[in-house]
């Protein structure tokens, strides 16, 4: 299938080799196992040829050539290493060390630094030029990553990564000569800039100039050769970005994006601030042993056996006392499909729970109701469509908060394709780039979308509809400028041939979801995508919301409509409960057991039993994508703290003690069951 391209014969270090035409001398050398050091070059980025550390001798020419930007030619003779070349590389390296402060001993990157490694490789153990560096600023205004210009070698990788991978185009060289600095936007601090905190610049930075604010000092954690890496995925939002975890001593040191990933994902291997940084953050005290409420009302550590026995007894007693509705099971949609299937079956078939729901059940019910009135299955568009759209309308959603890569993809599309983006509501990080921004007043969503539907679908053709729309717009009391923006959005929607709508279920209050319906209608009127898919992306609040909803974990009926439960099993995945409605639902129960990785602060006075479970990095499991069409396997990255059992073990033990036979005896069985239900 591959067209047969004529290979080119070249000579590298005396060896004749055949290589593809058009590739660089550097690539040719690497393909043949010959090492050439590089600094400004990065395989995932375009080549720049700025640092000249990769110089080689070409056809004996006295002028050395930068191999990363020199293409191969038929018959070319390349020498990659001789005294002259080494000397030239060493000089460059010395200049780099003399230009800024590279005091490795007090640098957080020491041990995982390309500049440092090169110095070892080229045996630069002292400087023959005076160190002339000035003091440069350090910017620590972001909670995630810092930039210390004193360690920057101006290789420009970050600038290219921000442009080519993230697409945010925040970084650039500022000034010139000795004043040359990497700057954000108009030389702003990271916090004031339009930086998305994706950290791609940090991943490609060869030095400690851009570094992680969460990370343990590498020097403390040993050299990078001692670490293990695990390839897995990030399950935090449904985009399932491939991620590479570096681990040492059962601690995650850093998380990298898979930059050289295939092109099936338009994100080009980036990660967002959640996937790269927030995982490294702890949000409370870990629960490592079960805890029971004592006679004196305090929680005290107890053995697993006692805690499980008591839980099973109390749940069984609750069922006996009040048939059917006695028990409620509430799970976080951050759990894997396997954990959720098991939990659902244990609660439903095993304990006859009256209500099984998820923490994001309210979102589900809005979407579910909107669909109930329609004559088509719910098929949402994939976020991967974003680069192809010619207009993107965001209503009420804030992808930077929920699915950050969606927001960086939108930004990239604006710059790369000049796609028009209209924002209705809040998405501050897109404001400077969006074509339109219309504020959304609380309670106005339905009216506004209805008006948009009328005006956009009958723009100028149907006088009656236009009059209706005008009436609705009047009701909205928009200011003159906002009204103009509104009309412009409507026109853009009506003119677009391949638009995409992005929204969030939480936009609409449970009482009034007609706006959501209007949006569905609008996206339908713009024509379905292949596979009867709507031009609509519904952002969801949890990493596995789609999976949980598909598995029927979220309740279709309003919780509590079947009578008040007296006992509840709350299955958390690392979150703290702060939603007042939920807290309200959990008060006044006879019995509350919380299975959670962290001590649930807000429930410390309410829970009768606390059972520790692992965080997502500590367990295997599958997750379902945002649009519900793909499944990804998330591998265990580190072991849970000692004493913590797998979710699967906890649920099995409870099943056994309550006399329930779930039909899966091993972890493998659960996996198969989940896979079958997800249609995989």
């Amino acid at each position: 299938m591959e067209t047969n391209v004529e290979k080119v014969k070249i000579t590298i270090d005396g060896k004749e080799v055949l290589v593809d035409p058009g590739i660089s001398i550097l690539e040719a050398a690497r393909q043949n196992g010959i090492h050439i050091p590089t600094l400004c070059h990065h395989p995932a980025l375009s080549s720049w040829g700025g640092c000249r550390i990769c110089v080689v001798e070409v056809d004996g020419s006295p002028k050395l050539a930068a191999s990363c930007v020199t293409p191969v030619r038929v018959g070319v003779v390349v020498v990659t290493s001789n005294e002259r070349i080494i000397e030239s590389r060493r000089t460059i390296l010395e200049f780099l060390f003399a230009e800024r402060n590279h005091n490795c001993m007090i640098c957080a990157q020491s041990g995982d630094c390309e500049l440092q490694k090169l110095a070892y490789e080229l045996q630069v153990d002292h400087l023959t030029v005076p160190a002339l560096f000035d003091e440069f600023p350090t910017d620590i205004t972001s909670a995630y990553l810092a930039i210390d210009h004193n360690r920057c070698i101006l290789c420009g990788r970050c600038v290219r990564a921000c442009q080519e991978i993230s697409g945010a185009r925040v970084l650039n060289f500022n000034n010139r000569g000795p004043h040359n600095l990497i700057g954000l936007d108009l030389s702003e601090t990271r916090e004031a800039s339009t930086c998305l905190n994706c950290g791609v610049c940090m991943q490609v930075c060869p030095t400690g100039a851009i570094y992680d604010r969460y990370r343990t000092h590498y020097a403390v954690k040993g050299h990078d050769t001692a670490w293990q890496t695990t390839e897995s995925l990030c399950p935090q939002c449904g985009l399932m970005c491939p991620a590479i975890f570096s681990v040492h001593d059962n601690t995650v040191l850093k998380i990298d994006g898979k930059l050289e990933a295939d092109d099936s994902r338009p994100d080009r291997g980036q990660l967002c601030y959640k996937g790269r940084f927030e995982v490294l953050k702890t949000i409370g005290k870990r629960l490592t042993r079960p805890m029971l409420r004592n006679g004196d009302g305090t929680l005290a550590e107890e053995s697993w056996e006692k805690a499980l026995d008591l839980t099973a007894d109390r749940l069984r007693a609750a069922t006996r006392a009040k048939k059917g509705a006695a028990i409620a099971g509430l799970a976080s949609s951050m759990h894997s499909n396997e954990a959720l299937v098991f939990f659902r079956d244990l609660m439903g078939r095993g304990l006859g729970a009256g209500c099984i729901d998820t923490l994001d059940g309210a979102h589900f019910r809005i979407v579910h109701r909107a669909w109930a009135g329609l004559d088509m299955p719910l098929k949402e568009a994939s976020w991967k469509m974003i680069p192809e759209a010619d207009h993107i309308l965001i209503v009420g959603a804030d992808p930077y908060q929920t699915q950050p890569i969606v927001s960086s993809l939108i930004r990239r599309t604006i710059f790369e394709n000049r796609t028009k983006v209209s924002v209705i509501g809040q998405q501050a990080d897109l404001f400077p780039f969006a074509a339109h921004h219309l504020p959304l007043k609380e309670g106005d969503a339905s009216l506004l979308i209805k008006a948009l539907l009328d005006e956009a679908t009958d723009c100028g053709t149907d006088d009656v509809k236009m009059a209706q729309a005008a009436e609705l717009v009047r009701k909205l009391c928009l200011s003159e400028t906002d009204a103009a923006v509104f009309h412009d959005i409507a026109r853009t929607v009506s003119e677009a041939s391949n638009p995409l709508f992005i929204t969030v279920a939480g936009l609409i209050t449970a009482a009034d979801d007609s706006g959501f319906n209007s949006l569905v209608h609008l996206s339908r009127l713009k024509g379905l995508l292949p596979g009867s898919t709507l031009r609509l992306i519904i952002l969801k609040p949890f990493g596995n919301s789609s999976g949980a909803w598909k598995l029927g974990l979220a309740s279709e009926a309003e919780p509590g409509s079947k009578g008040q439960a007296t006992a509840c099993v709350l299955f958390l995945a690392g979150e703290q409960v702060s939603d007042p409605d939920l807290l309200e639902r959990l008060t006044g129960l006879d019995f509350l057991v919380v299975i959670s990785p962290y001590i649930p602060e807000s429930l410390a006075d309410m829970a009768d039993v606390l059972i520790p479970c692992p965080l997502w990095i500590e367990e295997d499991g599958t997750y379902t994508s945002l649009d519900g069409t793909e499944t990804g396997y998330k591998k265990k990255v580190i072991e849970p703290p000692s004493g913590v059992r797998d979710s699967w073990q906890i649920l099995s033990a409870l099943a056994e003690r309550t006399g329930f036979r779930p039909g899966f005896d091993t972890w493998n069985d659960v996996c198969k069951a989940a896979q079958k239900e997800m249609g995989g």
Partner: protein
Amino acid sequence: MEEQLSAIFARFRGTAGEVIPLLQKTQEELGFLPEEAMRRIGDFAGVPFSKVYGVATFYTMFRFTPVGKYHVCVCRGTACHVRGADQILEHVERELGISENETTGDGEFSLETVACIGCCALAPCITVNSDVHGRLTSKKASQVLKKARGAALKEEEDGK
């Protein structure tokens, strides 16, 4: 500023290739490049802010603070350098109480250094607006500045 920018933009198409002429015209019109103007240029040309700023700071012709009524350029070209441009600069800085690329609080003077004004025979030299002053000594430089200040005072009085 809004009106001036709109008038400038009206003469362009809004493409990435127009950033430099846009910056030039804006500086011509406003005397310098305020931050807001650079943002507007980015929006208009569809170019990220970082790009606008990168370009603007690369070329020495662009400035980011308003020029004073009297814009002083001290030449640091080779000929002037050899004949003591550094001392002249230091002296002017002391006299005006500002450093390179700054403007005095009263907006009267701004100071910049340039490489060769093209009258090396008169080195060391400075310009005040479009007037060249050559063969300078510290004393002569003071006189030049004093004269400018005097003119400024006089204008003010005349205005009264």
